């Protein structure tokens, strides 16, 4: 049975086969691509800063940050001020936060008998967009992070403005999503602690339990994250065993015959990426407790994603406090990037997980460019002996509607997956 999955930044086609009334196989096909990697070939390296945000309208900022870091990785030595690094982390974090709000209220809500909450999705989304625009000029599609730093100068008044956006978003979260002061997050260590808390997240989790869905959507229980930041750790987690040493060169892509999306694996194995992966690798107590009870199910996955919001908000407050405005925003590199013949790789944590960019510069031009998106990790199809992460999560379910929900808990982004 073929089902077209819609409203996932495009579409995907899932082809299910059933045995004894249960899904025993499903293929995942993304049906079109835009050849961004080819468009980049032959361009001046800096032009990638303009083209790459246009890989994706919802997480384009992560593509910008991945691009600038890949370009900077082409240098043996390049000076970036701390201030520029912090500002880049801030704007990237704002994008993560707004992506999570949109997904929760627009994508997840309708599966639980409630209508999309457009106002609740968009109010915090717009605040976070404004916060990015203060630094980047606009959102979406700024290219304000350039090789050597960021283009903006930031004043005390800008900071005051951004702090108000953060506070207002925090307030919104506390009033609507989880009724607990952000400053008290540390008291939430188990699902039991959560039971005293109210709010839309709590309601959705209750509905999952009432429907007896808390064990649905389990996959390999294998997680990976390559993007390091002042907040996220790099590492992998298998069941609950976390190890830190990863080699990015061992990430490989393979073509698919039916789909425009290439699948991605690490040492020939599929891994889940995203907020749940980050929480497992970062050993977040609340998420680990949910995982202890329900494994890598939709319950844990939804909780992990929404619960990342207040933690990221708190982190942005710390980042802002650590800004030293007397540092330069931009330090002109001694050698122009187009003079290099080099390869640069970067990994950043985007809303949906690890995003990898790899650029090769030769004779003043981009010789090749490779982009591996988070959704490729989570959603690409494998085959029977080696199923992809989302495929495995759907096998054994007894109806297509549930499968669609499980699929969407990974937060599918079709444009990114195929780029």
């Amino acid at each position, binding site marked *: 049975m073929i089902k*077209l999955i819609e409203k996932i930044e495009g579409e995907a086609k899932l082809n299910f086969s059933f045995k004894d009334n249960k899904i025993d196989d499903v293929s995942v096909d993304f049906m079109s691509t835009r050849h961004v990697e080819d468009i980049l070939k032959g361009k001046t390296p800096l*032009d990638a800063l303009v083209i790459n945000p246009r890989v994706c309208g919802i997480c384009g900022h992560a593509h910008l940050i991945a691009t600038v870091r890949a370009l900077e990785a082409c240098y043996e030595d390049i000076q970036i001020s701390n201030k520029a690094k912090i500002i880049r982390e801030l704007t990237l974090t704002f994008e993560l936060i707004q992506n999570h709000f949109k997904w929760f209220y627009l994508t997840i809500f309708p599966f639980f008998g409630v209508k999309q909450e457009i106002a609740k999705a968009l109010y915090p989304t717009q605040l976070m967009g404004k916060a990015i625009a203060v630094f980047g000029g606009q959102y979406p599609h700024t290219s304000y992070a350039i090789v050597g730093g960021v283009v903006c100068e930031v004043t005390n008044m800008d900071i005051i403005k951004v702090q108000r956006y953060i506070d207002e978003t925090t307030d919104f979260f506390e009033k609507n999503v989880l009724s607990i002061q952000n400053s008290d997050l540390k008291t939430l260590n188990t699902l039991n602690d959560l039971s005293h808390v109210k709010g839309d997240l709590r309601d959705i989790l209750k509905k999952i339990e009432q429907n007896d869905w808390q064990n649905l959507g389990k996959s390999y229980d294998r997680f990976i994250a390559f993007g390091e930041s002042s907040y996220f750790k790099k590492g992998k987690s298998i069941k609950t065993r976390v190890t830190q040493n990863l080699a990015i060169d061992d990430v490989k892509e393979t073509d698919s015959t039916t789909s425009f999306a290439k699948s991605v694996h690490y040492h020939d194995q599929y891994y889940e990426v995203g907020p749940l992966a980050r929480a497992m690798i970062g050993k977040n107590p609340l998420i680990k407790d949910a995982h202890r009870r329900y494994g890598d199910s939709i319950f844990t996955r939804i909780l992990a994603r929404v619960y990342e919001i207040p933690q990221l908000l708190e982190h942005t407050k710390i980042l802002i406090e650590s800004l030293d405005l007397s540092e330069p925003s931009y330090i002109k590199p001694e050698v122009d990037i187009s003079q290099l013949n080099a390869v640069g790789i970067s990994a950043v944590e985007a809303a949906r997980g690890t995003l990898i960019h790899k650029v090769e510069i030769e004779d003043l031009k981009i010789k090749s460019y490779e982009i591996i998106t988070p959704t490729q990790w989570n959603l690409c199809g494998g085959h029977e002996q080696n199923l992809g992460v989302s495929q495995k999560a759907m096998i054994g379910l007894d109806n297509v509607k549930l499968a669609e929900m499980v699929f969407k808990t990974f937060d599918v982004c079709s444009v990114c997956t195929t780029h």
Partner: protein
Amino acid sequence: MKKTRVLWLTLMSCNGNTHSFLNYPYIEQFLNDFEFIYHPIIDSDYTLEEIISQDIACDILLIEGSVADDFIKAGVPGIDIIKRYAKIVEKIVTVGTCATFGGIFRESNYKDVSGLHFQEERRTDKYNDLFEKTVSISGCPVHPEVLVSTLYAIKKGLSLKLDAYLRPKEYFSYTIHNGCTRNEYFEYKVDNHHFGELEGCMFYDHGCRGPFTHGSCNKILWNEVNSKTRAGLPCMGCTEPSFPKRNIFETKKNMGIPEFLPVGVSKRTYLTLAGITKAFTIDRLEKKLFDD
């Protein structure tokens, strides 16, 4: 009043216009007056499968993304969906630079990628019968207020004054340069701009296309707070047919004179002005804006 029925059709696109639209501050008000028969994110009464297989009543077709004959959307050629609804609707709006001029995906590997009526500056003549019905709102992405206000104007039946690319003049007669906070540096030709500073104009060295790009970015700010050029990022000309140009962060010059000059300014005029500005220095503009 009856809600205006709108189909938001996304073709070869990054969905940036969809998300830019979601930054419109009063969407709930908008949704009291308009309803989407389909939208890539907002819930709608019909599925995409229903949209592509039936004729659903509709007033305005919004197209996001570039157009190519061999681009397939949900199993059918995207262009077939356009043709089906072009007959039904009263107006077509191309949303964003891709749908208007071909944009960034003009360079993808599909055949003959273009906007609905233009491939860069060139009229394609493919859908001439739809030309009269079309309004273009270019921009990569589209500005949410420009899009929404234009839709209201259509709903009210106003006759919009359009430019040669079918863009509403009220938004596209301005240049991006209008309203930029760096104007004084441009006017007096203070040409030592460095990235990361409040001071300086990016026209002379860093590729700013503001003086010859049409749009309202510095009049109707982005996210209601800022614009690229105010932040210190050169305008890339994303509302124009030729977007994206190459070597975006550089100003191409011939014998020291920028290749592209402000709209309507001849080379002679420019040189005369430049000559005059050489005769004086304005201390205030040579210094930091806020000095100690």
